[in-house]
């Protein structure tokens, strides 16, 4: 476990360094936040999108999310974003630990992306962005009876509707490519970190709607179907 953790930490550092390097190169080359002066109007419309990764997760595993987003296009450079979704987990009694875990709750993320591509008005875009996310959710945890190894009594553990909440931040990098007309496809890699969380008396939660599983990886990934209007 220790060796795997250090490998993961090492790979995390490489990934984040590469992301920062890309942002740094783009910044030096063209002025990261400087509005390009040209005849293109400031308001360029908006886009709606749906995340396909959460959808697939929901079908093939015991957790996932349905998520959509609204993105406003300001001069093909700045993109204020609102992401809304519903995250669900339904982990039936685990074969090893006999634990079940259920939650279902809405969440939102708000933030902005910057198009860091050299040609801002091209059909394809490269994004760097930040998000703030929040969810308020309830958790049901149940455990089949298990024996106390010393006192030999049977223990039973059940929590219904534990109220939890979490605030988190994300730094992300992504690509958006035009396929045909208003139809775009894009992916985003998200580095997430918890800002504040409240899990009540239970200790920790396993799946947080919109944030994902609380495991050793801080990375998330989304693949978006986008209509650019």
């Amino acid at each position: 476990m220790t060796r795997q953790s250090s490998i993961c930490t090492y790979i995390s550092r490489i990934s984040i360094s590469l992301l920062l390097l890309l942002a740094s190169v783009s910044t030096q080359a063209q002025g990261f936040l400087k509005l390009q002066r040209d005849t293109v109007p400031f308001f360029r419309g908006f886009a709606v999108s749906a995340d396909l990764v959460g959808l697939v997760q929901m079908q093939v595993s015991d957790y996932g999310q349905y998520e959509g987003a609204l993105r406003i296009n300001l001069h093909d450079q700045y993109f204020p974003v609102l992401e809304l979704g519903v995250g669900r987990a339904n982990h039936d009694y685990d074969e090893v630990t006999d634990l079940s875990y259920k939650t279902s709750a809405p969440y939102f993320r708000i933030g902005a992306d910057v198009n860091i591509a050299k040609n801002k008005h091209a059909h394809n875009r490269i994004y760097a962005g930040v998000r703030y996310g929040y969810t308020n959710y309830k958790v049901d945890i149940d455990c089949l009876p298990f024996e106390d190894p010393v006192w030999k009594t049977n223990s039973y553990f059940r929590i219904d509707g534990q109220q939890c909440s979490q605030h988190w931040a994300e730094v992300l990098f992504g690509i958006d490519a035009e396929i045909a007309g208003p139809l775009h496809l894009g992916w985003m890699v998200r580095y997430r970190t918890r800002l504040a969380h409240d899990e009540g008396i239970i200790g920790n939660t396993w799946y947080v709607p919109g944030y994902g599983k609380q495991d050793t990886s801080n990375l998330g990934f989304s693949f978006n179907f986008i209509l650019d209007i």
Partner: protein
Amino acid sequence: MRMLRLLPLVVVVLLQFACSSIDCPVDNVVEVNYMVKAFDGDNEVADTLKDTLNIWSRRFDGTDTLLYNSGTGVKSFSLPMSYTEPEDVLVFKVTDTLHVTQTDTVWVSKENIAHFESVDCPTRYFHQLTAVRSTHVRIDTIIINNPSVTYDSSVKHLHIHFKD
């Protein structure tokens, strides 16, 4: 072509996803830690029990089990707690060098709090000590120093004083 230049980054990112792993705490033993103490005036100081110490639990069904076996020169020791019983009953047997055994009973009252980490990790119980009492054949007194019993093995929960 520009997209192709991002290929190494994509590969590194995909490797990240392969790194997700079960994150159960390695130090996941919940035990109550006893420190042997003596009074020096009003102050508590570390002490050593020179006689031999054995500790049994008394189960709900009337049977018992050995928790601590033949400790000598004892300065501290750790004992498990029952998961859900409101009170644990322990039997302390102290045998001196002349093979004379003296027996005390200790009652440890507590609140039990189920602790969840992940569906991949077994459930544990944390405890909040509420009261400790004992007979006084060989035990002088037991004091709650820190009532919170969790994964933290460095916490000294109870101070136990033996009679000379």
